[in-house]
């Protein structure tokens, strides 16, 4: 088979699997699990094959035009360069792990067939985005992901949180997609084509008429999909979905799409200095804000969600300083360890029967109940905190190194300001990241109090994939930083000495601070009993999680935080804690800025419709109604009235006849 055929099969297989799963889900339940896992695994194998054949050389390109589409042609185009090949491998790895994990996680879920099919469809859409060489085809995958995320986040639709979260995810990403679409059209109009290669050629020759406007429009869509400030608010709420879905969305698919898109079209953004600065500011605000918020969250998955936003901030930061190699490098390592973190968190929630860190902090021995999750999560958290020699260290240092280059003015097209912003906020975020990773680890695994409930061994499918993902989390960065430049633009990804030392030092400071705070507050934890566990610990993991999510607000008074005085985050953040826990009131601001005006407008429209438009309608109906009433009057039911009318008519007719007959 040619490489092109293989590459076409990569997105096609999960799509067919999704189709078959949806069709056979009810009639042949026995086929659902194989149909969910096998196509994604096959796609993984094919993606690896494609990556090997591409080998970092010249991009594989193929295109065919189905039908003429007017002035700007739309091609079914394939454009696989080193970025695409490697991201596709990451996507298929994570998707395979998620599918295998889900067979255990949603063991008894009646809606598993549709769930698995949607995950496959989601994977297929992401692969389409990755491989597509045409922006219109890319947009198809982009939007299919949006709708899949809506369904998957709302998987526990019995709970109001999940319903609200799915609608929010859909609306917020769509809010970004509208300017994104306009930006795409503007870009294609300038280039005369939706093909990425043609667009990049046009940009290289300076053919873009309004680079800043186009770049900013595209950035809106990217911010929506990749959960960057100010459109990131859907991501923490999307934790109301099942944990494997969170892993898929956060590690490989949805949020990666935005970063990947900017990486593909980086020259377009580089054409505008303003866009790069905006990108840098966006990254900086996102990183610091999410780091602070993550420190204040009580729900273990919301901590990870904010950490995803922060790590995505690193990637956009790398893009803002013009180093897409570093960005995609971080995307790869982050994909591995974030998927691992989420899947391990799913195991923890199942074992502990709660998603609240405050409750876990009052359970001892949790780490002995789930040793697989404990060890793999430790690896992943170290990677997240960028401690050498874990993967996260190398990718994060490559980002910081690129920022340092930009500060020195070594990078073309990149303003110094962008470099400074990314460097300073990146270092600050390293501190925060290490702190919240440490807090998460200490609270989850080193609680003190009653023994954790014993629910028996976790399903093997769930623990196995943890170890599979632990390998790249541990070693990918160390092995890859030398070979990856061959696949990417050729920029060096080796950690620079200064940033390495400063970054690692800052991270260690964060670890120590968090540990110190935890030790300081250890005594208080025993004094304030807190916590609630799921009502059905013997159920499958999905059921336990759904119950934990539904009961969090009821048990702790808030969806995001818990009134736990022993929380080291509370001590470290001080007065900021209150604001950080609710994401710095961004939702409230949006409610005041957008929701209320829209609702007021809606009530105004309703008023106009009811009182103004309706009046005309009623007025138009008044005359017929009046006539009808008058006619109805004649139907009295009184025989004498009828006979009177009849005889009157007879008399008139008779007189008329007589008059006519006599010729009067």
């Amino acid at each position, binding site marked *: 088979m040619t490489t092109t055929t293989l590459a076409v099969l990569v997105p096609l297989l999960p799509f067919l699997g999704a189709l078959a799963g949806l069709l056979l889900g009810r009639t042949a339940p026995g086929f659902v699990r194989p149909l969910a896992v096998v196509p994604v695994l096959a796609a993984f194998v094919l993606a690896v094959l494609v990556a090997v054949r591409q080998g970092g050389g010249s991009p594989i390109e193929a295109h065919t035009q189905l039908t003429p589409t007017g002035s700007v042609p739309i091609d079914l185009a394939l454009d696989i360069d080193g970025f695409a090949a490697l991201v596709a491998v990451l996507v298929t790895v994570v998707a395979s792990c998620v599918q295998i994990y889900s067979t255990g996680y949603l063991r008894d879920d009646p809606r598993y067939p549709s769930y698995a099919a949607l995950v496959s469809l989601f994977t297929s859409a992401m692969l389409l985005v990755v491989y597509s060489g045409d922006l219109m085809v890319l947009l198809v995958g982009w939007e299919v992901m949006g709708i899949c995320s809506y369904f998957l986040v709302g998987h526990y639709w019995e709970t109001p949180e999940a319903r609200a979260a799915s609608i929010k995810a859909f609306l917020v990403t769509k809010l970004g997609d509208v300017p994104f679409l306009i930006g795409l059209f503007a870009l294609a109009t300038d280039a005369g084509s939706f093909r990425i290669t043609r667009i990049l050629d046009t940009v290289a020759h300076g053919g873009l008429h309004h680079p800043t406007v186009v770049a900013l429009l595209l950035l809106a869509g990217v911010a929506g999909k990749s959960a960057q400030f100010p459109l990131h608010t859907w991501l923490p709420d999307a934790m109301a979905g099942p944990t494997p879905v969170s892993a898929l969305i956060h590690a490989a698919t949805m949020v990666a799409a935005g970063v990947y898109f900017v990486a593909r079209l980086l020259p377009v953004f580089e054409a505008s200095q303003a866009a790069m600065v905006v990108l840098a500011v966006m990254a900086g605000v996102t990183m610091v804000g999410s780091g602070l918020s993550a420190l204040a969250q009580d729900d273990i998955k919301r901590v990870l969600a904010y950490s995803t936003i922060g790590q995505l901030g690193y990637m956009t930061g790398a893009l803002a300083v013009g180093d897409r190699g570093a960005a995609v490098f971080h995307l790869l390592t982050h994909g591995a360890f974030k998927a691992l973190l989420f899947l391990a968190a799913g195991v923890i929630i199942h074992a502990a029967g709660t998603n609240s860190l405050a409750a876990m902090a009052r359970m001892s021995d949790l780490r002995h109940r789930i040793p697989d999750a404990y060890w793999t999560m430790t690896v992943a958290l170290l990677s997240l905190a960028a401690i050498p020699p874990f993967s996260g260290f190398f990718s994060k240092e490559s980002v910081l190194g690129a920022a340092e280059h930009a500060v020195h003015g070594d990078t073309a097209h990149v303003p110094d300001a962008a470099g400074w912003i990314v460097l300073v906020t990146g270092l600050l975020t390293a501190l925060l990241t290490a702190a919240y990773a440490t807090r998460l680890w200490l609270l989850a695994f080193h609680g003190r109090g009653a023994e954790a409930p014993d629910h028996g061994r976790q399903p093997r499918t769930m623990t196995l994939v943890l170890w599979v993902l632990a390998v790249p989390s541990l070693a990918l960065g160390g092995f890859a930083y030398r070979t990856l430049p061959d696949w990417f633009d050729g920029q060096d990804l080796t950690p620079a000495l200064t940033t390495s030392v400063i970054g690692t030092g800052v991270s260690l400071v964060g670890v120590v601070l968090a540990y110190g705070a935890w030790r300081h507050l250890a005594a208080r934890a025993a004094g304030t009993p807190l916590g609630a566990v799921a009502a059905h610990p013997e159920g499958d993991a999905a059921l336990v999680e759904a119950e934990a999510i539904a009961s969090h607000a009821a048990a702790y008074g808030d969806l995001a935080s818990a009134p736990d005085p022993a929380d080291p985050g509370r001590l470290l953040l001080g007065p900021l804690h209150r604001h950080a826990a609710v994401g710095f009131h961004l939702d409230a601001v949006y409610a005041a800025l957008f929701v209320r005006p829209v609702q007021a407008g809606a009530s105004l429209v309703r008023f106009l419709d009811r009182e103004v438009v309706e009046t005309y309608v009623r007025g138009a109906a008044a005359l017929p109604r009046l006539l009808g009433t008058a006619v*109805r009057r004649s139907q009295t*039911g*009184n025989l004498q009235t009828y006979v009177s009318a009849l005889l009157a008519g007879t008399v008139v007719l008779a007189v008329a006849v007589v008059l006519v007959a006599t010729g009067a």
Partner: protein
Amino acid sequence: MHLAYPAVLSALLFCTGLYGVLARRNAILVLMSVELMLNAVNLNLVAFDVWLSKAARDTLHSGQALTLFTITIAAAEIGIGLAIVLAVHRNRGTADIDRLRDTAEGHGPDGDDDGDAAAAAKKAEASA
């Protein structure tokens, strides 16, 4: 005798009966008015019979025979009519034509009265 005398008297009696049929509220008074109309017709028949038997040498006396038939039929009609009125009165508790409006459009105040009367009649029967 001028033929116009009986003819005009007949027309006037007929219209008087017509007024009674249209304006009276009690069903039995309506029946009385119907009798008046029938008698007006009878007068017509008799007068024209007399005129024809002289003027046209008519020996059939169809007018007088028809008058006799009309009187007989009127007697039968009054018997049946009274039986119907009594049946209605027994069922509805009234012989008032204004209140027998089951075919009225909608259920106005008259319909309600009707319903009330029927309910009252049922109640009276049940208590009897």
